[in-house]
């Protein structure tokens, strides 16, 4: 038991951690530290470097430069101790489809040298947690995507890790299953005090689950804090105006003293202001005066999507549709 003076023990500490692939800086000198017991989100679009960062932390890939400690162990010099103290749910499936759920879990328990007499009990407890107790004897190839994901989460916990890494735990799942998985994750964190490090590009989900988040883009962390801090950091409200605004109109808005920022994408103007409800009439009047046709107006608090938009000038969704990424995904798919 460490009696630290106010500062919590660190689950993760990285120091200028980098990974380059033939000149591409997939992870570019990231320094961050994560307190024990937090749910921490790495948020960013496809290709941002989230998986690469996690791969290094779980000792799967070697850093090009920099260093990191996981649970106090150095990821290169004490890889074995790191491995024993963490659980991982990879982005891509990693179960043996031919085996049953039970066999997959037992195999994991043996690989991690869980004491024999404890295996059965732990497995039973975990499958209950993820709601798979009735499917233990079923071959994994007969599982749905959501069941596989839940099984992988249970498997990652069989050896009682102090940190659980989840790389896109809900990708490709239906909304209901997604919500279920986030529930398990929260429950785990609350009941076991386990540190959870997850990546996702669903900003809205991250907002609900994460206690702290880092927004990562092109291998760099561009913002970090609790979702509240990140959103409040932008300040005020966002008025979204759907209109046929031309460039001039945007510039005029940006020039107003009470407008903090104007960002335009997909034909929508996002105007950030304080006390949004008072500014709507002003804005509308202004638009009308300038002969701009307004289709609709809405007022909301900034979301993590807005935070991303603020720091990068793009939305995460635009990024998903970029042809280069589509190519990369297709290649990845073909490699399977």
């Amino acid at each position, binding site marked *: 038991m460490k009696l630290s003076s106010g500062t919590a023990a660190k689950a993760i500490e990285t120091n200028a951690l980098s990974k380059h692939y033939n000149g591409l800086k997939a992870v570019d000198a990231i320094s961050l530290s994560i307190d024990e017991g937090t749910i921490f989100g790495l948020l960013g679009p496809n290709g941002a470097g989230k998986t690469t960062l996690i791969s290094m932390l779980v000792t799967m890939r070697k850093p090009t430069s920099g260093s990191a400690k996981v649970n106090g162990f150095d990821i290169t010099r004490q890889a074995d101790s790191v*491995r024993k103290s963490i659980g991982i749910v990879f982005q*891509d*499936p*990693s179960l043996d489809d031919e*085996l049953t759920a039970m066999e997959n879990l037992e195999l994991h328990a*043996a690989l991690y*040298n869980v004491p024999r007499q404890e295996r059965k009990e732990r497995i039973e407890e975990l499958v209950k947690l993820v709601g798979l107790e009735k499917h233990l004897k079923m071959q994994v190839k007969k599982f749905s995507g959501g069941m596989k994901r839940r099984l992988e989460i249970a498997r990652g916990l069989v050896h009682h890790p102090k940190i659980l890494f989840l790389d896109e735990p809900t990708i490709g799942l239906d909304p209901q299953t997604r919500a279920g998985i986030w529930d398990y994750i929260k429950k785990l964190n609350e009941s076991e005090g386990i540190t959870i490090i997850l990546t996702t590009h669903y900003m809205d989900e991250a907002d609900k689950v994460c206690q702290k988040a880092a927004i990562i883009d092109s291998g760099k962390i561009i913002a970090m804090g609790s979702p509240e801090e990140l959103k409040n950091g932008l300040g005020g409200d966002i008025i979204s105006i759907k209109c046929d605004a031309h460039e001039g109109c945007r510039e005029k808005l940006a020039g107003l003293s009470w407008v903090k920022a104007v960002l335009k994408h997909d034909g929508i103007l996002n105007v950030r202001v304080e006390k949004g409800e008072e500014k709507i009439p002003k804005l509308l009047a202004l638009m009308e005066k300038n002969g701009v046709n307004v289709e609709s107006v809405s007022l909301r608090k900034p979301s993590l999507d807005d935070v991303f938009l603020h720091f990068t000038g793009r939305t995460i969704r635009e990024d998903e549709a970029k042809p280069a990424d589509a190519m990369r995904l297709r290649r990845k798919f073909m490699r399977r």
Partner: protein
Amino acid sequence: MNREIEGIYILWKRELLRFYRSKSRIIGSLGMPFFFLAILGTGLNNVFPMAGGGNYMQFIAPGIIGMVLMFGSIFSGVIVIMDRQFGFLKETLVAPISRLSIVLGKAFGGATTAVLQGVLIMLIALLLGAQIQFGNILLLLFFMLLISVMFVSLGIAIASMLEDMHGFQLISNFLIMPLFFLSGALFPLSSAPWPLSTASMLDPLTYGVNGLRFLLTGQSDIAFGTCLAVIGIFTAVFIGLAIFLFNRIED
């Protein structure tokens, strides 16, 4: 240490479970050798009486068993590619056990399933009337296991260099088939033209087939001691190669 052994054991068990599940693979893998025995063995039995007095069925039975061992074990080794494609490999690569143990678990597991297939085809050969005897069963099983470990290791080494199953056809046509035909499994190569007989001497399966022939019929072109020694050396080299290449896999 205990941890590593437990890891090897569970990966060995995984191979057996997968083997047991894949009934169609077992039947499929025994189809070709069965027809070799049933058609070539019985068909050529009277056409080619062997000089030494034995018959053809007796000659090819050990050869076909050797073939089953080789096919089965190279295939189990090459399956590493599929473990990689379907992601399971990652689960083992980040587990707190050494890569050496992963390779050993896989090699012993694959070899065990190959020996099971070898034993099955041996029984089939008996049913088809091959006159084979079992002098020293333990030695026979050990020798079959050694041949299998050798070829699984070769399979793992190859798999560690390939990204996907596309290369498998190539391996099958340009490695497995020549190894089989040059081994003297179907006909003796000792009096063949020198390029063939030399190639045959470089083929590890030649020593496997001859060793099996000695153990099952008491006759062989190459002394059993030599077979055992050569297979032992090839096994050590291939295991070393498999471990070296497997170590280089990033993910």
